[in-house]
């Protein structure tokens, strides 16, 4: 158990190093760059004209069905990983492989259904 957390301590150390590289770069950059903000400079860019309307404009997220599909499939896909490590070990074999085809069948049927419903084409 000790080794397990040692591994993630290294991970945390590198995350801190990464943050320090980016933060240190930006801090050093502060000495080199000018800081002369004006009201015009701080406006939102819209091809040179004054921005029209609200910045977070309302828009229709057309691909929300993809998002649902992704969540469904991704949750399934996560179970592939533990299964992948054992399926060909002694004592598993044929039956486990059959289970994989059930799994693939479900995914393929779902994909086919979504495709026939027309939700996979961007409108």
């Amino acid at each position, binding site marked *: 158990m000790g080794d397990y957390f040692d591994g993630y301590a290294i*991970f945390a150390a*590198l*995350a801190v190093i990464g943050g320090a590289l980016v933060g240190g770069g930006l801090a050093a950059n502060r000495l080199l760059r*000018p800081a002369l903000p004006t009201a015009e400079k701080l406006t939102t860019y819209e091809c040179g004209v004054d921005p029209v309307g609200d910045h977070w404009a309302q*828009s229709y997220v057309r*691909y929300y069905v*993809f998002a649902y599909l992704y969540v469904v499939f991704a949750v399934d896909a996560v179970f592939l990983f533990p299964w*992948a490590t054992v399926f*060909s070990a002694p004592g598993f074999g044929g039956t486990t492989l059959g289970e994989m085809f059930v799994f693939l069948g479900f995914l393929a049927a779902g*994909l086919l259904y979504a495709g026939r419903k027309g939700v996979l084409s961007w409108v």
Partner: protein
Amino acid sequence: MPDLLEIVLKLAAVAAAFGVLPLLVGQAEHKVMAHMQGRLGPMYAGGFHGWAQLVADGVKFAQKEDVVPAAADRTVFKLAPAVAIVPYLLVLLVIPVGPDGQVVLDLGLGLFFALAVMGIGVIGAIMAGWSSANKYSLLGGMRIAAQLMSYELPMVFAASSAAMAAGTLSLSGIVEAWHWYWLPWQAIGLVVFFVAGLAELRRPPFDMPLADSEIILGPYTEYGGLRFAFFLLAEYAGIVVLSALTAVLFLGGWRGPFLDAELGWLWLLVKVFALAFVVIWLRVSYPRMREDQLQKLAWAWLVPLALAQLALTGVLRVALG
């Protein structure tokens, strides 16, 4: 408890690789594109072969003003470049560069770790798209989200095919289990993984979310100076990480013609740069894909192909033992 000095040295090596390799890829992109497209600009600065162009770019980025638009969500806007770039550094932890523990962290679920952490990099770009309070950025950010959702799935399937073939999730274990016959056996997985990875990095021809000639680099529209440079670096670091993961999963990582133990890092580097060259080559050769074509490629081609690869891997693995 492993030797502390060894860990410090390994972390320093990872940080050095992270500092140098993306810049080498950037330099290679300048020169390869210049040669392939007959561009004169990148071949001029500094005299011989335009070697100073990248230095000049760096100097320019370092002295530009750091503008945060008044309408932007300041905290998220400033944090986004770090979220975009640091995950690629963290993935390097689990990439093995040689046999017998020549890796910083040999996690039992290294493959899962690598995929999970790589996904975080995309969130940096989505944060940038949302926090800029700019219509181009918002459009770009939403396209990035759509692209991540469509391409993450085939990428995960292709990667788990390699894990099935090796019977382990440890990246070192996968390279140990690799044999030459994986090349034909996992060929579909290799292509699906690489293409889906390119789409996740938003490299041309999958750069609809950035589309500099249409939505002004999408989520990066409002960025300038060093923060913008960090996003560019994140793209190059992403190329390095994707090439390294592809090499480790499908091309035998540190395996080479001789001296695997001593020269493993060299064989891996050769493969990484060969794949990075392909990434640049694809950018030069193909026009940008339209948003609906992008989605269609993922759902109608890559996902079914990846499922087929899973079936093939499973059957052959059980049948041959």
